[in-house]
C-alpha cells in the first residue's frame, strides 16, 4: 500500500471518527476555541499594555540646561553628538522660548516674570529618550556624563517620574506574564483532558484494531489527523471570536487609551500575527493533545 493510499485510508478513518462522535468532537473543538480565545485575549492585553508603556515611555525626556553664553556652534555640536550617540530626538529651547512657555503654563506668574530686567532662564536641549534607554540606571549615568560637559549647567531627567514608570512597567509586564502562563497551562490541561475524553469514547475501537493486528501507527494516525483538524477548527473559531470581540471592544479601548495618552489609541487588538499564532497554536495543541491521549489506549 502506497503512502498516499495509507494517508487516504487514515483520513477516511478520521472522517468516520468525526461522523460517529460529532458531539464529543464538537466539545473538543469548542474547548479548544474557548481556551485559544482566552490565550488570544491574554496576548492582546499584553500587546495593549506594551503599547501603553511605549506611549508612556515616549514622554521620558532629559532636559540639559546650558551655561549662559554658550555659543550656537557649541550647542549644534552637542546636539549632533547627542543624536548620534543616544539616538533620540532633540529640541533646542532658547531662553526666550523657555520664558514664553513658562508664561503660558503659569499665567499667574506673568507679572512676576515681567519684574526681571533680564531673562533668568537658561537655554536648554530637550532629549526624548529612545526605547531601551529609558530605564533609571541608563538615564542616571547619562546625566552624570552630560554634567561633565563644560557647556552644560545642569541636567534634569525626571528621576521621580522615570522611577515610578519603570516600577509600573515592571509590575504590568510581570502581571501579564503570570496571567499568560496561567491561561496557557490551563489551556493545555483542559485540551488534553477533552481530547482524552474523545479518544476514551473510542477505546473499544482501538482495542479491536489492535486485536486484529493493527500497528500503533495505524491506530494513531487517524486520531492525530482528527486532533489536527480539531485544533485548526478551534483556532479558526477562536480567531473569529477574538475579531468579533475586538470589533465590539476596540472603540471603548481606543477611547480609554486616547484619554490616557495621545497617540496610543491606534493600538491593534488582533494583529495578523496573532491570527497565525492562534491557528498554529490550535494545530499544535490538537496534535500534541491527541498524541498524548491516544498513547494511553494503545496498550492492548
Amino acid at each position, binding site marked *: *500500500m502506497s503512502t498516499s*493510499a*495509507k494517508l487516504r*485510508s487514515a483520513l477516511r*478513518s478520521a472522517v*468516520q471518527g468525526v461522523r*460517529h462522535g460529532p458531539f464529543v468532537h464538537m466539545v473538543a473543538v469548542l474547548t479548544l476555541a474557548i481556551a485559544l480565545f482566552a490565550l488570544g485575549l491574554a496576548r492582546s492585553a499584553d500587546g495593549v499594555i506594551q503599547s501603553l508603556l511605549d506611549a508612556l515611555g515616549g514622554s521620558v525626556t532629559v532636559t540639559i540646561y546650558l551655561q549662559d553664553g554658550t555659543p550656537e556652534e557649541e550647542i549644534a555640536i552637542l546636539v549632533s553628538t547627542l543624536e548620534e550617540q543616544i539616538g533620540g530626538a532633540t529640541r533646542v529651547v532658547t531662553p526666550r522660548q523657555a520664558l514664553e512657555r513658562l508664561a503660558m503654563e503659569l499665567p499667574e506668574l506673568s507679572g512676576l516674570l515681567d519684574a526681571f530686567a533680564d531673562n533668568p532662564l537658561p537655554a536648554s536641549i530637550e532629549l526624548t529618550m529612545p526605547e531601551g534607554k529609558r530605564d533609571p540606571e541608563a538615564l542616571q549615568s547619562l546625566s552624570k556624563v552630560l554634567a561633565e560637559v563644560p557647556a552644560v549647567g545642569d541636567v534634569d531627567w525626571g528621576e521621580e517620574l522615570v522611577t515610578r514608570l519603570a516600577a509600573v512597567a515592571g509590575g504590568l509586564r510581570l502581571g501579564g506574564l503570570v496571567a499568560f502562563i496561567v491561561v496557557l497551562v490551563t489551556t493545555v490541561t483542559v485540551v488534553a483532558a477533552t481530547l482524552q475524553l474523545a479518544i476514551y469514547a473510542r477505546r*473499544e*475501537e482501538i*482495542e*479491536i*484494531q*489492535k*486485536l*486484529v*493486528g*493493527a*500497528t*500503533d501507527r*495505524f491506530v494513531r494516525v487517524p486520531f492525530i489527523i482528527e486532533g489536527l483538524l480539531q485544533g485548526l477548527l478551534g483556532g479558526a473559531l477562536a480567531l473569529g471570536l477574538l475579531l468579533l470581540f475586538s470589533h465590539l471592544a476596540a472603540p471603548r479601548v481606543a477611547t480609554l487609551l486616547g484619554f490616557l495618552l495621545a497617540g496610543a489609541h491606534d493600538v491593534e487588538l488582533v494583529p495578523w500575527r496573532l491570527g497565525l499564532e492562534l491557528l498554529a497554536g490550535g494545530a499544535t495543541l490538537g496534535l500534541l493533545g491527541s498524541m498524548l491521549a491516544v498513547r494511553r489506549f494503545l496498550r*492492548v
Partner: protein
Amino acid sequence: MIELFHVSKAYPGDPPVLHDVNLRIDKGEFVFLTGPSGAGKSTLLKLIFCAEKATRGQILVGGRNIARVRESAIPYLRRNIGVVFQDFKLLPHRTVEDNVALTLDVLGVPRIEARERVYQMLKRVGLAHKRDVLPPRLSGGEQQRVVIARALVNDPTILLADEPTGNLDPARTLEIMDLLGDVHVRGTTVVVATHDISLLTRYQRRTIRLEGGRLVADEDGVTLARRLAIT
C-alpha cells in the same frame, strides 16, 4: 504449530491462573479447550495471541517464541491468528462489511480488493445480504458469524475461538460449530474454548481439560466420548 513449555500466568496478589502448562497442538488440528469457569481457558488463548504475557515458560507459535518477541512485532504475529470473542467485539456504528474489512484495512489491502474479499467471506458465512447492516440489528448467531468472518477474511493459519457459542441457542450453536468445522477442513488450526460438554460428545475432537489453572487431561475425541458415555 502451537507449543507451550512450563507456562504459568499469575497476577500480583492472586493465585496463579495457569500453572506449569505443557501442550502441543499440531498444524491443521481441531482442539477443544475445556474446563469449568475460571479454569484458565481464556487466559491460555490470550497468551497465544499475545493479549497477555506469560509469567513463566515459553510459548512457540508457528516456530516463533512469543515470550521473546518485541512489542512492536506483536501486530504482525496477530495477523496470522484469527480470534473469535465470546462478547463479539464488533464496532456497533460500523456496518457488517466495515467490521469484517477492518482486518484487511490493518493489512493495507487496497480498498477494492478488500471489498471483494469481504463479500466472498460474508457469502461463506451466509451474511452477504446483510453487509450494509449495523451489528446491533443482527441476532446473536449472526453477530458471531460476522466475528468469524472478520477472523478468517485474511486466511490466518490459526483460529482461536473463546466460548463462540456461549450466548447462542442450540440451533445457532450447531450453525457456528459447523462453520468452524468447515474452516478446519480447509486447513486452519482451530482451538475452541468451551465448557459445553454436549459439544465435546457431539463433535468428538481432541480435548484438553484445564482445572484450577492446571492441565488435567488431554484426550482424543473418541476416548473422551466413551468416558463421558460411561460416566
